[in-house]
């Protein structure tokens, strides 16, 4: 059961990654070129999933959308991990007032809605993929900081850290040699779950017009465009919706599966 969960997650994630990689080099049709007279075609051949209101092949747009989603996921999760993990490490190792200050700052960021940040960034710099990445990245920093801090506290209380401290290893050395390797699995799981969150957030932002601008396709703005055809061509909304659902599901399952796989206490007895 656990194995199946991990496997399903892996397959779904691999599918998204593969689609995105292929889309870098090839799509069946031009994903932004309007083709008048071909609008709102149903699924068939050569347009496997049909065409949208501009006569553009939906499958091609979905493929490019996967590329955007992956890019936003990698950058924003990367950003929050690169900032969040060292902060969590610092708080966990130093303790005392440093811990207090860092974690309260994290709480403040946590309390600040990502959407508000995205609106702010979009109105100052103009909505773009970059502003969406920044908003999602910053908003998820506290999650990484918390996970890293909790992990650090646990490791710091262990006997081998005590031994390392007794033998005069510096704080930096302990962090590098003992803490980081031990909390790496935790961070990995958090990254996978964070990725799922990032995909959903990106879809929501571009649905609201606060991320990648037209005419570049994203799953969110495809959903927005499909909305006006709900009664005429309901399948329009299904494809991007399904893509978002499967991608989020994939990363969530992968995260859950990884956690169970890496945590010996949850491992099933054969």
């Amino acid at each position, binding site marked *: 059961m656990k194995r199946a969960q991990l496997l399903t997650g892996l397959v779904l994630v691999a599918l998204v990654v593969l689609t995105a990689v292929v889309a870098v080099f090839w799509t069946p049709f031009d994903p932004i070129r309007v083709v008048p007279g071909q609008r709102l075609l149903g699924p068939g051949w050569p347009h496997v999933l049909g065409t949208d209101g501009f006569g553009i092949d939906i499958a091609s747009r979905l493929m490019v959308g996967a590329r955007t989603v992956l890019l936003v996921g990698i950058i924003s999760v990367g950003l929050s991990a690169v900032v969040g993990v060292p902060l969590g490490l610092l708080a966990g190792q130093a303790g005392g007032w440093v811990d207090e200050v860092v974690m309260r700052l994290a709480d403040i960021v946590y309390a600040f809605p990502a959407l508000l940040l995205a609106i702010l960034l979009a109105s100052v710099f103009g909505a773009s993929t970059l502003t969406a990445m920044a908003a999602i990245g910053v908003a998820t920093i506290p999650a990484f900081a918390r996970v890293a801090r909790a992990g650090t506290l646990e490791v710091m209380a262990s006997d081998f850290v005590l031994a390392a401290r007794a033998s005069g290893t510096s704080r930096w050395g302990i962090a590098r040699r003992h803490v980081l390797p031990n909390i790496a699995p935790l961070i990995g799981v958090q990254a996978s779950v964070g990725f799922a969150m990032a995909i959903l957030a990106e879809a929501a932002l571009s649905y609201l017009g606060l991320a990648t601008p*037209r005419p570049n396709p994203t799953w969110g703005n495809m959903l927005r465009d499909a909305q006006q*055809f709900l*009664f005429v061509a309901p399948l329009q909304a299904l494809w991007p919706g399904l893509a978002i*659902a499967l991608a*989020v599901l994939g990363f969530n399952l992968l995260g859950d599966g990884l956690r169970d796989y890496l945590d010996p206490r949850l491992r099933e007895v054969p």
Partner: protein
Amino acid sequence: MHAVSSRRPHRGPIRALAAVLGLALAIVLAACTPSSPQSTEKPLRALAVGATLEPASMDPWHNTAASIPQVLLYNVYETLVKVDTNGEIKPLLAQAWEVSADRRVYTFHLNPAAKFASGAPVDAAAVVANITRLKGDTRLTETLRAQLAVVAGAQASGNNQVQITLLRPSTMWLYDMSSTLGMMLDPSATGDLNTTSAGSGPYAVKAHNQGQSVVLAANTAYWGNPPRFDEVTFRYFTDPNAMNAAMLGGDLDVISNLQAPDALSQFADTTQFTTISGTTNGEVVLGVNHDNKALAKLEVRQALTRAIDRRALLDTVWNGQGTLIGSMAVPTDPWYEDLSATNAYDPDAAKALLKEAGYSSGLSLRLRVPVVPYAVKSAQFVASQLRDVGVKVTIEELDFTRWLDEVFTKGDYDMTIVAHVEARDLGKFANPKYYWHYGDEKFAALYDAADQAPTEEQADAGMKAAVRYLADDAAAIWLFALPNLVITKATISGVAQNATTLSFDLTTITSR
């Protein structure tokens, strides 16, 4: 649905799947559900009208947005003369008027019964006070200032008789007076005009709920035919689908102009809904900033025009509803002719013209559009077709208030798309300060000559020449004229077929 499924005790994939599908579905279904719960206790005679753009204030003199006169003109503020549904000038506050032989002095005979909501009469002194107030107003919108420039002054020649003198004859002037320029404000008004009103019309502004609606209440002391509704609410929807859903759900009585023509079939049931299809004055203009070095070149503007297949654009973005115009005139204008074949679609010619202008290696332009359905959809179409001829277009979507500030007022754009809904508005091109910065002196001369022409025939012929000049000079790119697609409940009648003015005229509407 989402909340219920997450409370279930199952762990693992099923819960995750349900949650994820729930979220995705919630996004999809957001469009289908009415945006607010239906109000069950409405006052006796109420009318709910769905509209797209929310007015920023209730002050039409200092804000150019057409959404303000949509609510106020003829309903709250009245004018001396009014344009009827056939586009002809009819009496309103003035029972009759005479024009002097040199066409410079207009004498209006005011209706002695007319009075403001405060009870004060709309007499000659009030009209003079209004003209004087506008003349002295330094914050007046650029459009009104330009329209007012022709007026020398006004003076009372009797208690109910007023003479307005012009500096020169003007064909357009009386039309302008039938719109925002002619709105008569109670001279004794002291309230904040951003939120209250002081007009002579059958309704008065009761409330402006920012982000939602404007509520008008009947003026029980109205001097003309008593208003047919006690309360009229204009509700604003940025999302056309939400407006359609509200109509289908019974929350609205009228959709003032359908913004999702693809959804027309939803209202096909004639026992429930009436669909009215007519014309508007709304020219959807792909405006170019003539201050831009590239766009100042005729070849570039011609190339851009030739690169866009406007028939296909209309079919794609507005479901083929609407009219191709090709210049700044609509079919209800006396000087209208179909100029859509001028600079007709020809991508190869467009490429050649770009090469000739020195932009064969490419040209990058910012297309900054307000978030309104016709503009956003047209922008994507335009960007795609211009890309085909080697012009790189970056689309930026701005909410309408920001668009007004940055594009319309500050001129920070290369290209933009907006509908110009004022009647007979080609004169805007004669104003070099207007946001297109089109300072063509030849056009200005043509327009002024037509405006000052001694007879109506000569004026019409002159306007026709001016309109044609605009098309030949590709002063802008005219995408199409918006249709007037009104949906009403079957019980509502009297909504005008053609939107000939800025007003959503409530005075003709009745409910069964």
